């Protein structure tokens, strides 16, 4: 699996195509009525605005020369009315569009987040968290304006352009062509700039993503950094990343700013050409000076929308780099998903059967091969064996964190886990992982994560069962003490106890404990075992542990090696067998002791 690290740019899997725009259209289409309405408001506002010059004309041509003060007042009133209408419409449009653009951000972000929830572990394992985060937060913010106001404004500018074209051509066809002649030049300039500009902004988004990744990592790993007194090295790495951001930004800015620069320069050139043509070539005879003056004004009135469009286009090019990343994430395949027509898994008893299960993380390198076993409801199974033999893989497969390469896993003798909904499957399992993750929030909330509708009493009961209650009540706010994700407030053992309580609270039919108690002292562990014994009755459990005391108390022990189960049986059976398990067991005990125990 190709993994990415903080200082490696991500290769864009799907370069930009119009398909991206089509997908963006989904978000726009939802608001098309509102946007259409906003567009109409803008059109009305500018139509109302067109009367402004007319009123001015009357003011200067009629009212003032005549000295008619009452007409002047009436005209002033009319002008005020036009302004008022304009303001009203503009305000209404602004209100609607604020809602639309905020909603587009909201919806894209919601969908992106929801999609991320479905992505497999491997997605998260293969890239720095900061690179995912920057897409959800920063990139989404950037594209909203382009997808809302950007679209409306470009439509308005096109309308403007069309209206002015009509005025221009009715005034002077020849001179209009001269004004238009600048357009191909500008388009040529754009075509030259565009690939560089796009590339520059892609580089910029990559560098920014790298910066984010390393920042997130450095905050999370600060304890290690300080323990190893590595700040200087990290800072120099960061300096490199920051400088790369700066360089990329300045390059992109230099290119992007050429767009308005060339548009304005072309405008000036066209203006000059138009006058030269008007005066010399056509001579005063064909073109009256009124026409020339009018056309002089049209030059800027024609080119202003084009400059505006160029700016919108600029924004578009800049943000497409972000849009690409967003859609790339949304396109990330959901590997483990509900099968079509998947049924809800009813409340289960807890029988688990592996039928010829084969699994690999990378094609060709099987971790498990043709593994078959069957566990009855209520049994507890210990998985032992050398590290890396695939114990964690087995429990991950039961919860269907991965799809099998071959074979099937059946629950209660009739439900193939790949044919039921993930939610109904996993919500009946209690999985306690190697890393105990603590969310920011109170301890109460952290335990309640296991069952959201649990009462405070139930939470406390679970905490008591795992012997976490004692240390929790000693904290300043007891169960309402705020803890942080990577805070050093809790010791590793305490975090394990809290996630243990969380798992128990989930009231699972199948319990999976992956090194759940490795950081907990033996005495507490024993107390925990006593405490949860009653709770475990009738539940199937899979326990990965290295501690003999934990292993021994299980109904059956599977020794995992060589892509399958090498030995299986109860503790006593396996000891008698004097095989791999016996070797593992005796390795832990003082030699003098083995004779006593073995008997």
């Amino acid at each position, binding site marked *: 699996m190709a993994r990415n690290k903080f200082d490696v740019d991500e290769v864009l899997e799907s370069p930009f195509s119009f398909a991206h725009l089509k997908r963006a259209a989904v978000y726009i289409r939802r608001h098309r009525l509102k946007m259409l309405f906003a567009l109409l408001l803008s059109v009305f506002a500018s139509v109302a605005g067109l009367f402004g010059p007319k009123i001015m004309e009357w*003011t*200067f041509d009629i009212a003032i020369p005549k000295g008619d003060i009452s007409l002047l007042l009436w005209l002033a009133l009319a002008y005020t009315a036009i302004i008022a209408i304009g303001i009203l419409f503009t305000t209404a449009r602004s209100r609607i569009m604020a809602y639309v653009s905020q909603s587009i951000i909201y919806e894209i972000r*919601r969908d992106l987040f929801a999609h991320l929830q479905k992505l497999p*572990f491997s997605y998260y394992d293969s890239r720095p968290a900061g690179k995912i985060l920057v897409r959800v937060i920063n990139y989404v913010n950037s594209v909203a304006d382009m997808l809302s106001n950007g679209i409306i404004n470009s439509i308005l500018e096109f309308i403007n352009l069309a209206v002015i074209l009509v005025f221009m051509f009715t005034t002077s066809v020849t001179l209009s062509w001269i004004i238009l002649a600048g357009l191909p030049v500008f388009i040529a300039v754009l075509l030259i700039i565009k690939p560089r500009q796009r590339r520059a902004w892609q580089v910029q988004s990559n560098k920014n993503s790298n910066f984010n990744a390393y920042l997130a*990592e450095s905050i999370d790993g600060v304890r290690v950094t300080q323990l190893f007194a590595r700040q200087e090295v990290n800072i120099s790495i*960061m300096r490199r990343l920051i400088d790369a951001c700066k360089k990329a930004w300045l390059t992109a800015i230099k290119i992007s700013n050429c767009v308005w620069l060339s548009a304005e320069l072309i405008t*000036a050139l066209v203006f000059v050409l138009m006058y030269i043509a008007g005066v010399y070539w056509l001579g005063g005879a064909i073109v009256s000076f009124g026409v020339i003056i009018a056309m002089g004004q049209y030059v800027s009135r024609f080119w202003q929308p084009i400059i505006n469009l160029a700016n919108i286009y600029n924004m578009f090019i800049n943000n497409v780099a972000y849009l690409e990343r967003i859609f790339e994430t949304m396109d990330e395949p959901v590997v483990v998903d509900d099968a079509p027509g998947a049924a809800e898994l009813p409340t289960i008893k807890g029988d688990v059967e592996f039928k010829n299960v084969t699994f690999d993380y990378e094609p060709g390198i099987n971790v498990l091969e043709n593994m078959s076993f069957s566990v009855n409801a209520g049994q507890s199974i210990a998985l032992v064996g050398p590290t890396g033999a695939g114990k964690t893989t087995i429990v991950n497969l039961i919860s269907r964190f991965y799809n099998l390469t071959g074979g099937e896993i059946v629950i209660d003798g009739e439900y193939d886990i790949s044919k039921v909904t993930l939610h109904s499957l996993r919500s009946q399992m209690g999985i306690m992982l190697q890393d105990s993750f603590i969310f920011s929030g109170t301890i109460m909330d952290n335990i309640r994560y296991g069952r959201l509708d649990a009462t405070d009493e139930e939470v406390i009961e679970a905490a008591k069962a795992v012997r976490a209650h004692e240390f929790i009540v000693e904290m300043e706010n007891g169960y309402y003490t705020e803890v942080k994700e990577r805070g050093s407030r809790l010791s590793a053992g305490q975090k394990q106890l809290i996630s243990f309580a969380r798992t128990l609270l989930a009231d699972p039919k199948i319990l999976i404990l992956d090194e759940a108690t490795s950081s907990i002292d033996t005495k507490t562990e024993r107390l925990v075992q006593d405490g949860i014994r009653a709770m475990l009755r009738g539940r199937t459990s899979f326990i990965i542990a290295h501690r003999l005391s934990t292993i021994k108390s299980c109904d059956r022990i599977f020794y995992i090696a060589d892509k399958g189960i090498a030995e299986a049986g109860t503790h006593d059976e396996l000891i008698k067998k004097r095989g791999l398990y016996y070797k*593992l067991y005796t390795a832990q005990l003082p030699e003098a002791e083995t004779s006593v125990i073995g008997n």
Partner: protein
Amino acid sequence: MFRIRWLWQNTDKKSRAMFVIAMVISAVTSVALLINPFLTSILIDEVIVAKNTKPLIPLLLGILTAQALRLLLRYVMVIMLENSTQKTFTGLRYRLFTTLQYQEIRFFDTYRTGDLMTRLTGDLEWCRHFMSFVSYTVLDSVLMFSSTLVFFLMISWKLTLAVAAVTPFLLYITHRYSKTIRPYFIAMRERLSEMNTAAQENIAGNRVVKAFAREAYECGRFDEKNNSFRSTNLEINKMWLKVFPAIEALANFMTLATVFLGGFFIIQKQITPGELAIFTSLSWALSNPMRNLGVLINDIQRFFSSANKVIEIFYSRPLIVDREDAVDHPNPKGHIEFRNVSFSFRNTKVLEDVSFEVREGETLGIIGPTGSGKTTIVNLLARLYDVNSGEVLLDGCNVKMWKLQQLRSAIGAATQEVFLFSDTIDGNIAFGDQSLTEDEVRDFARRAAADGFIGRMPEGYQTIVGERGVGLSGGQKQRIALARALAVRPAVLVLDDTTSALDMETEKYIQEQLAALPFKCTKIIISQRVSSVKDADQIIVLQNGRIAERGSHQELIRQRGYYWETFALQNDIPADFNSAAGLRAGVR
């Protein structure tokens, strides 16, 4: 204003000069906007009206040159401004990151990752925007407004006064608006930070989310943050749209007043039509700056609320720093002493009156219940926290008198919760000492029993591991962490529960390796397993932050206390087992 001063203070001399030059260019080019309308009016009068083609070319050349010059200057101005801003912005990012790196651990117990990230990205971005855009736009607007006003005054003070009468209203409205909107921007920034935190924790905790099938719940929770971010933004827009019509009306009033009052004055013969023409043709030079002002108020307020958040981090200073009279320790020996050390965390006692001594080259074993303060001992030794009372000494010198860099370099720790960087395995092992050769890295990996599984990976030592070592098993992570600690060849080697996820054979192998390290070191072994600490020269049992038992393995077995109980539990001996066999087993 202190926020602007802060930005300025963090701009170096060259960038300040560039910034000032850019501002001057901006001022000149914005006033120069008036040149072309002026030249064009000459063109119309002299060429078209006078039907005289002679001055046409020079005038057009003048227009073209003026415009081209103005545009190019404008471009140069933007690039200069971007350059100086980027310099400052980059410098701030760098300084902030440095501050974060040296912040004590207590700081990170207070701030969430997502919140810190917001400050260094989104908030800083608003500072950048302020410096590279708001700055010159404000200048342009003010300049344009005031120069036009002066120009108008010279023509007709009466009309100017009438037109300018709206200015106080405008100032009042914007002033009031900027006050009311401030809390909204602060709230919006908070919402953003909360949303960032929610997403960040969701990504970091994605395994737990999946394990509990909480995807829908997480979506709901995120939706709440996402939605409240939207609502706050919409509220801001609503507030803005309350003043927008007023600002717009005032701006339009200027045109209205110019034309109609001007018309009235003409009728009254107070001004000439030509004078009014200048007023009307330049009324935009008054109304546009006014419109800009409103938009800029939003940007400025947003800058203020973001800058506050950045400045808070910028000026936060760790309490744990090198003392001025810190002693130089170029060759740490590894003699450790704790003298009556007590430590509490927010009024919860963690360690109380802990004293022990480990001589150079000796091994200390620490065992004790969950949360008894074992890891805290390491934290205090490495001065991640400072003691509340008592003294921690390394080589006979209080750790507070050590230089932090030297102190921490003297300690190599394999921590309980393994954090790896998203780097190659090679890079992770050489984390504390980048000068290691590949062979050395391999050697330390071998000693940590990691060479085997690393070698089996398709890309071997060049395999990139995820953050926190995701994708590796617990045992694999622990072994890489151990190799990383060994690789700095420290005077004090700390193993904090480093073998808990390893099987017994691997642990035994590692113990043998630790006994024969190629460098001399004092070892602190924290473990839940008696088998890990039993060979230590000295073992202490921590209970509720106090040393409950201490001695060698044999002595502790005889004491029949916590240590014995744990030993008995781990070795399947009934705790009340008193037979000779059991005792023999224990004291072997």
